[in-house]
């Protein structure tokens, strides 16, 4: 089998036209998902069963089912329901872009809240006690002691999830969105050259992943100044 170099050179710029949409899906759902994760975390560790139980159920459902199925339910399933068509969310859920953002956000929120919880649990109990002994309120202790240390602790797991989310954005192509994967599928449908096109697509995703890794490496280094200077 021959490798059509011209086709690759031709299709890469076309696929890159979808990078803007890939970035939009990634950053918007990352931002919203992280915000959701913080809310879920606070509910989960609130110590009140009527907040923590629904959160646990939510996390179980969204971590326990394929994200593709979640996207399909939101995109194909929700419009069947009249109360959704009449709700204020309809302008978002009517559009495939909105559906993709909602699905990715809900899914990321579930994963990231568990990552954050791991970080919070990892904070030395003695440090929280020191804050309490100084007379700091529960809220102040969380914001100024627990959270900054927990964020540093869960950064590697968080970056892992960002990479995972970056790849999940490709699923948006299944609901008509022309992100990079969507464009690649269109090109393949026209050229019948899946090998060249999809391998080129892989290379683009690998470069993006490398950029995410480097960014988090830099953030980790900055946030570890107090540890690195230890001698």
């Amino acid at each position, binding site marked *: 089998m021959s490798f059509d170099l011209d086709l690759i050179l031709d299709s890469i710029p076309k696929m890159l036209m979808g990078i803007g949409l890939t970035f939009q899906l990634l950053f918007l759902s990352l931002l919203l998902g992280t915000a959701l994760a913080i809310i879920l975390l606070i509910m989960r560790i609130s110590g009140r069963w009527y907040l923590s139980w629904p959160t646990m159920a939510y996390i179980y459902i969204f971590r326990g089912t394929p994200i593709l199925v979640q996207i399909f339910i939101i995109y194909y399933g929700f419009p069947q329901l009249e109360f959704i068509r009449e709700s204020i969310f309809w302008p978002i859920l009517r559009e495939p872009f909105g559906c993709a953002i909602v699905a990715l956000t809900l899914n990321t929120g579930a994963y990231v809240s568990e990552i954050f919880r791991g970080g919070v649990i990892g904070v*030395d109990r*003695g*440090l929280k*006690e*020191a*804050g*309490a*002994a*100084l*007379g*700091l*309120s*529960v809220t*102040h202790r969380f914001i*100024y*002691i627990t959270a*900054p*240390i927990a964020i*540093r602790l869960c950064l590697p797991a968080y970056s892992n999830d960002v990479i995972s989310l970056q790849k999940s954005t490709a699923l948006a192509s299944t609901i008509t969105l022309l992100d990079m994967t969507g464009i690649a599928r269109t090109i393949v449908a026209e050229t019948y050259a899946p090998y060249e096109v999809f391998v080129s697509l892989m290379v683009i995703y690998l470069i993006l992943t490398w950029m995410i890794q480097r960014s988090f490496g830099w953030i980790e280094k900055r946030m570890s*100044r*107090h*540890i690195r*200077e*230890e*001698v």
Partner: protein
Amino acid sequence: MSDSGQTNIIQLENVDKYFGEFQALKNISLSVKKGERIVVCGPSGSGKSTLIRCINRLEEHSNGKIVVNGHELTSAVKDIDAVRKEVGMVFQSFNLFPHLTVINNLMLAPKLARKASKAEAHDIAMKYLERVKIPEQADKYPSQLSGGQQQRVAIARALCMNPLVMLFDEPTSALDPEMISEVLDVMTDLAQEGMTMIVVTHEMGFARSVADNMIFMDNGEIVEMNPPKEFFDNPKSDRTRLFLSQILTH
């Protein structure tokens, strides 16, 4: 435990503490007057740490009554934070906030819990860093300091809240031997300035020179409480005598 007219800063009446089935404190009664310095010793697991951790409610006592500076310790959260502002605590493992520089470790509580301005908090922090003789370390992170320096920072951090009482939970137990004296010196200075202190420690030299009263605890009970001269030279209880012979012979 004399009942003179002086006000008690801390008052414990018949305090019990259970961890599940295990009884860590048994019917503890104790009064601490302003300016009084008490050293608590005893074998590990005897309830010394639990005793002082109940005083700022890091542990909740199971029965009995604890009154600190006129506030009875109950589950009312507001009162607890108010009490904790008046009770400084120094831990065996320092517990400095690793992500903050020394100066920010010291400024945090005055800013948040005392609503001090940044400049005020900075002045307070520098004042106490000078008191513990390490103002030059202000901008370093805790991990860059020696154990002795870290513990002095921890003492300064507690002092920044201008507490009425200081609790010390084995403050030198995690230190290398050559760093113990620098911490004890700071504590001795503090005692001489009239700070009310409860110190859990096995440093008997320090105890002898600083304590107004010695407490020996065993199995969750206060076995003996006496001024140091009496305590060391003429211990009443066999258990105290045995304990003292074990820690003083080497």
